């Protein structure tokens, strides 16, 4: 049997929008069967996962909070992936951004007088650190032709271990009984809360602003144009005189900066101190989010919200229905696989040709 893929000429906005919805429904049906097999009501599970988190002000804020780093990182990554540059080390850039930005928070602990400079400096340092860290694989790629996929991935682990070392060693709270965490930041080093209830912090605003800026840059600037052209047709771009090397460096810098900013936003927002580990895998999940969102900033926002929703709904399912966390993970994995597959189906006309081999 052979599978023939033909790019769809008649690709419409409708099929584009419909594909992920159908994939989502398919995942729901499969998930429903599993839940029923475990002796729970699929309807109750559906409500807990997808309705309950949207029905309360607080959980809506939590969904936004969880989606913010994913959306911010994925938006940066969209520039890379559109330009056919493969930065898969956003997790490391996130960690480095959190570490170096957080360092300012630790160093400024107890500072008196005017402390208005602390938070902007933290954010700037975090973004720059992420950017510089992302430039390592970019330079290795440009100068030495080393595959950026692999070096950026390797550097994730180096970053995680560096943070681990710093949080357990030099940046440890001296009054903290040797426990592996830094001092808690002063208020001047924390992102302000946007709403009463001390949940939704300004990190969400940063992510939203980044999405707006990214949309404009992609649509309206020469840089955005270059990224799109290279992605669509590398050869055409070369003829047009765009430099591969400069573009690689630029998109790595953008995505690293976004990831670093997300890292410091998380540290200065929700966490409020440095710990040996600051990310439950945001940098990796963001890669999936970027593709689920079809590399467009608005699509990414939607994808990030869906992932955030299932995570928070999964917590509710543990509490209310005593469904195991592993079920949520398996469901997320399945959902992602199905959406990626459906996306391909909306891009290509698939024909099964029996008998022949591909």
């Amino acid at each position, binding site marked *: 049997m052979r599978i023939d893929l033909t790019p769809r000429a008649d690709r419409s906005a409708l099929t584009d929008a419909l594909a992920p919805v159908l994939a989502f429904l398919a995942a729901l049906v499969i998930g429903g069967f599993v839940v029923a097999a475990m002796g729970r009501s699929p309807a109750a599970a559906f409500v807990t996962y997808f309705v309950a988190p*949207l029905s*309360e*002000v*607080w*959980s*809506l*804020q*939590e*969904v*936004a*909070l*969880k989606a913010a780093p994913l959306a911010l990182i994925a938006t940066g990554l969209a520039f890379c992936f559109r330009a056919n540059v493969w930065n898969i080390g956003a997790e490391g850039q996130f960690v480095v951004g959190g570490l170096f930005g957080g360092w300012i928070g630790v160093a400024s602990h107890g500072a008196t007088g005017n402390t208005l400079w602390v938070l902007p400096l933290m954010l700037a340092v975090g973004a720059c650190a992420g950017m510089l860290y992302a430039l390592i694989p970019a330079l290795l790629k440009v100068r030495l032709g080393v595959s950026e996929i692999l070096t950026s991935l390797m550097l994730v682990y180096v970053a995680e271990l560096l943070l*681990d070392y710093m949080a*357990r*060693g030099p940046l440890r709270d001296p009054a903290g*009984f*040797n*426990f*592996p*965490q830094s001092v*808690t930041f002063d208020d001047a080093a924390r992102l302000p809360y946007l*709403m*009463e*209830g*001390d*949940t939704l912090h300004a990190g*969400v605003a940063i992510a*939203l602003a980044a999405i707006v800026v990214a949309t404009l840059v992609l649509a309206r600037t020469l840089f955005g144009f270059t990224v799109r052209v290279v992605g669509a047709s590398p050869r055409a771009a070369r003829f047009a005189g765009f430099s591969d090397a400069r573009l690689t460096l630029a998109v790595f810098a953008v995505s690293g900066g976004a990831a670093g900013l997300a890292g410091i936003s*998380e540290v200065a927002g*929700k*966490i*409020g*101190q440095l*710990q040996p*580990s*600051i*990310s*439950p895998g945001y940098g990796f999940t963001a890669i999936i989010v970027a593709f689920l969102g079809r590399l467009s900033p*608005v699509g990414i*926002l*939607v994808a990030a*919200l869906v992932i955030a929703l299932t995570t*928070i709904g999964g*917590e*509710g399912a*543990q*509490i*209310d229905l*005593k469904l*195991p*966390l592993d079920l949520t993970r398996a469901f997320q994995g399945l959902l992602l696989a199905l959406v990626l597959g459906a996306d391909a189906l909306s891009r290509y006309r698939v024909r099964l040709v029996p008998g022949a081999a591909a």
Partner: protein
Amino acid sequence: MRIVQGALVAVLALGIGGAQAQEKKASEKLKVGFVYVGPVADYGYSYQHDQSRKALAAALGDRVETSFLENVPEADSERSIESLARSGHGLIFTTSFGFMEPTLKVAKKFPKLKFEHATGYKRAANVATYSARFYEGRYICGEIAGRLSKTGTLGYIASFPIPEVVSGINAFMLGAQSVNPNIKLKIVWVNTWFDPGKEAEAAKALLAQGADILSQHTDSAAPLQEAEKQGKLAFGQSSDQMRFAPKAQLTSIVDDWDGYVIQEAKAVLDGTWKSHDTWGGIKDGMVVLAPFANMPDDVKAKAEASKKAIADGTLHPFRGPVFKQDGTEAVKAGETAPDPMILGMNWYVKGIDDKLPQ
């Protein structure tokens, strides 16, 4: 985008106050929530806490309802704790040190709910802390090992150099020295709480270096299994791991939170709960030694005697004179180490031939 807008609109319409409204929902039946850092299936620390949750449900029956969240990353724990607080839980156990700041923050938002944080040192009017004097059990293990070792060398698989681990090593060594002043202790730091493969490798390394009895402060049963395979002896950790190594396990330091958890839940039900700091040991039944096995009767009898002596206070693992590695006197003869010293222990006792990682 739409969802976030919806959230903001909803907030403007409703105002805030969900927190207060939620709190009132708690009925006479007490809902007790648990937050674990690891999977309940780790057969170690989180598993043991989950046993206490089950014991609570069994002991108080209809008067309580329990739920738990597992595998909660410390950097992402605030939401998990708050979702328990918002779903009508009146008493919440947060069982990892890294949950300290998030617990305090959520507790501040929900002044009427009661929180119990394990192994931390910061408290509030509605946040109690509790931990166990594991070092008491380790002292007895040390005595047993000192009596049984043929090579005169013991092995210790350590996780991270926090005070709980360091005081455990010291107590183990002091116990061993009390029966064999020339005993040697080899320590391997694996920098993880849970990695069966690495723990097994560490066990092999220690056995190859001549240690014939292993103790561990990591969570998996891999070191015990390795000892069993090589016909050596070892101590279990957190739970009774006899089933993994019936010929090797001498005893195991079992975290028994059952009594404490039941007592606290009762206190909340009776309205007598008050914030406090509990540091329970063998006397309180919080540190339990699994049945002594694989040792001669006289060693068993002496271990039982030590257990009784520690329980009635005639024996204290850190009774002076205790000397630090460099020879300075830490505890004077006739005195016992005060609790703050044990809680912040960051030095080895004399006779340990290893450099404490800082």
